[in-house]
């Protein structure tokens, strides 16, 4: 469903992505591993379409992902290092906006998702009053509400406590069981139950 072919990207003099390619089918997860600076974030941003590769293509359902009729952006959700929240808006307002850009969303759905992620009490707090872990949980709520098929997660476990880590792994398992795709970058291990997880080591 997602096919990435021979990506090359230079950052100044550095050849960051050197012919990276992989395929992902429904229910599969690709764990992108590698040391700091190995290009994990760059790969994720390139696959998401935020960065244009110098060479190589990303295909979604056998169409070029950046072509207009591929519907790629609608089926993709990207959670970056930072939670992408407006600090002057409440967690709830942030979600209403960010999810609302994609599709209509009911208030009850937002409340339920925040409760699922254990941050229901933060809904009406401005995002600047939230801790890094709480911000991450709100960002994950956005991910769930986006109803995307392809999840692209950059270090989803940072700033989360042990319970939060288990929660994220559980969400990933659920997503894969429902036929979703996931591209996850972490420098550590990713202890998920699904046996359809592969590992891509960047050097």
């Amino acid at each position: 469903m997602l096919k990435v072919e021979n990506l090359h990207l230079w950052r100044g003099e550095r050849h960051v992505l050197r012919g990276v390619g992989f395929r992902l089918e429904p229910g599969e997860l690709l764990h992108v591993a590698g040391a700091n600076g190995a290009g994990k974030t760059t790969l994720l941003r390139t696959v998401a379409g935020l960065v244009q590769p110098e060479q190589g293509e990303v295909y979604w359902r056998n169409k070029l992902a950046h072509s207009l009729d591929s519907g790629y952006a609608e089926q993709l959700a990207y959670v970056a290092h930072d939670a992408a929240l407006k600090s002057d808006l409440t967690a709830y307002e942030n979600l209403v906006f960010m999810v609302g850009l994609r599709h209509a969303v009911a208030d009850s759905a937002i409340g339920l998702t925040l409760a699922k992620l254990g941050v229901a009490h933060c809904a009406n707090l401005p995002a600047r009053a939230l801790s890094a872990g709480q911000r991450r949980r709100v960002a994950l709520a956005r991910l769930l509400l986006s109803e995307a098929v392809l999840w692209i997660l950059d270090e989803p476990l940072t700033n989360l406590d042990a319970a939060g880590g288990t929660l994220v792994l559980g969400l990933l398992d659920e997503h894969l069981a429902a036929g979703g795709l996931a591209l996850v970058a972490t420098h550590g291990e990713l202890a998920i139950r699904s046996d359809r997880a592969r590992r891509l080591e960047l050097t």
Partner: protein
Amino acid sequence: MTVRTGVLAAVALLVRRDLRLAFRRPSQLCNPLVFFLVVTTLFPLSLSPLASQLRDIAPGVLWVAALLSSLLALEGLLKSDAEDGTLEQMVLSGQPVVAMVAAKTLAHWFVGGLPLVVISPLAGLSLGVPPAAMWVTVEGLLMGTLTLSFLGSVGAALTVGVRRSSVLLSLLVLPLAMPLLIFGARATDLAIAGEGAAAPLYLLGALLALSATLAPFAAAAAVRIGID
């Protein structure tokens, strides 16, 4: 089945969000406005309070002050969204980037440009602009500030990845704003002299139509490069 958000609904959502954000920080909202009033009152204080002399410089002072105070707020047009990562989420939302940029520009004008237009008669009064000429000035500034916001959105998008970009931004936008200044000040000038100011106003309208239709595309392209 979920219903995809249409472009217009997305634009409305973004405008509402930006207005809400602006009103959460009222001090930033007032800064360009106060700057505009202070600059326009500095001239009568420093030159001479002679009404005839003030009337001669009034068009230039009004327009230059409006230009500079619009520039003040321009840096924040896209920068804060770029810094906290919400800009790239907007790009990934599947909505056209052009519409997102245009919505942000409109919201920016509502809080930064429109208030200037509204208080410009006050500033005009302090410079001895006759009430009869005020309406032309307001009309001109209405189109002028909106054009500036659109022009500025291109500059803001180009400098989105640059740190401390305010000087660079001014250097990019001010030359583009020169035609605006020429026709805008001319319109006020003609109105003060009691002549018909339709010609420069039409030209301002043409500039507005041009920038409103072309600038969002340039800004969207620059945003895509900027978040790279």
